[in-house]
């Protein structure tokens, strides 16, 4: 923790960056912090509650953050994939951000829960191989032990075992709770369109009222736009006030992408994403 604070203080005092985006203690658990003065570096913390994916604040859509000046951002190994994603898609230049990597021992899926156990560990920590941050200018903190394995049921396998009608029922029940608050979109580090197709009214491709038809269109669109881009930070599902298992849609598509195109969203910006690229010999068994 001291290492992180000292680094942030130095970066700010030297004028290397204007703001350090990190984590601080808030009234309801850990929250993102925007530190602009060296003397405020004391507020920075890092522990198992730091589940937020902070590179979401680096997208050009966040004009209020960009207005603060050059940022340094605290990332866990998995969050580095979001930084890589933004660079890959030309939303961010590598030299315009200082990346502070923190060694991670897994996080809880909830910023108010400090105890890291098999019942509280975030889904994304499952079989994590990115606890040592890549792409970082500085890496801080001691190496931590691997997080416990989750004891939550494997919903993806359960859904894949269902009939089409049962899956329809499952998703309609989930989507019927959607109030179209767009929290999933706002929380996502990879959702950065200037103008979202869901906001367009002429023509209105996606009905904006919270009804079954528009809800299904929205969630299909969100999922397909994330295919091969999703960094599996799980923020969409955590931000959802209606507990819709959005991560399942992303996970399903990530599996398909891995299977068909041998691609996994990684922390190397130079590797192109699978949608928008192609191979002449892509499998086409589904096309007659």
């Amino acid at each position, binding site marked *: 923790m001291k290492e992180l604070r000292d680094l942030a203080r130095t970066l700010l005092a030297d004028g290397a960056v204007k703001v350090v985006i990190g984590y601080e203690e808030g009234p309801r658990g850990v929250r993102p912090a925007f530190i602009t003065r060296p003397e405020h570096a004391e507020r920075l913390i890092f522990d198992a509650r730091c589940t937020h994916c902070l590179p979401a604040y680096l997208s050009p859509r966040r004009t209020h953050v960009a207005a603060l000046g050059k940022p340094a951002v605290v990332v866990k190994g998995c969050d580095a994939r979001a930084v890589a994603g933004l660079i890959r898609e030309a939303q961010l230049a590598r030299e315009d951000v200082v990346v502070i990597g923190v060694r991670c021992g897994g996080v809880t899926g909830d910023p108010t829960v400090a105890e890291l156990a098999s019942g509280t560990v975030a889904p994304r920590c499952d079989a994590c191989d990115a606890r040592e941050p890549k792409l970082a200018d500085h890496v801080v903190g001691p190496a931590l032990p691997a997080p416990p394995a989750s004891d939550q049921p494997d919903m993806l396998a359960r859904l894949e075992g269902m009939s089409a009608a049962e899956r329809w*029922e499952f998703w309609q029940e989930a989507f019927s709770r959607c109030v179209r608050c767009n929290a999933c979109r706002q929380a996502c580090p990879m959702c950065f369109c200037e103008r979202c197709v869901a906001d367009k009214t002429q023509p209105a491709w996606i009905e904006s009222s919270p009804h079954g*038809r528009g809800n299904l269109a929205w969630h299909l669109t969100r999922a*397909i736009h994330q295919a091969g881009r999703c960094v599996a930070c799980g923020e969409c599902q955590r931000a959802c006030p209606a507990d819709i298992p959005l991560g399942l849609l992303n996970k399903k598509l990530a599996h398909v992408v891995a299977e068909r195109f041998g691609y996994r969203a990684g922390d190397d910006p130079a590797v192109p994403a699978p949608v928008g690229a192609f191979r002449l010999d892509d499998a086409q068994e589904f096309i007659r």
Partner: protein
Amino acid sequence: MAIPAEKIESFEPRITAFVCNWCTYTGADLAGTSRLQMDPNVRIIRLPCTGRIDPLFIVKAFERGADGVIVSGCHPADCHYTSGNYHARRRFALFKELLEFVGVEPGRVTFSWVSASEGQKWREVVNDATARVRELGPFERYRALAGRPA
């Protein structure tokens, strides 16, 4: 949802086909000028390329009452725009899986490559898709979703 027997008896599937201008549309035209008999259930929407087909087109077709959708374009290496169909192939490989994952039966969406000379193949695609959708029945589940009137 139980569908009354007489409704299934008289059920004529409504199928929307999104086809590319250069191959499948011309192939369908050839099928017509060759006087090939085929099921009259398919409404064709002509687009410049399969690469122009947004997955939302398929969603919109279902919203507006389609029971099935066909997406068809040029064979690989034949694209008028060089690579549109390759991009489409990746996109629809993913979207097909996504649709099935949320509970849309696989037979409702058909993908095919039909060239300008394959009038016969277009007939087979149309007849097969119609037969499959006829078997699945009307897409009542989708139509029953609440929303603004179209």
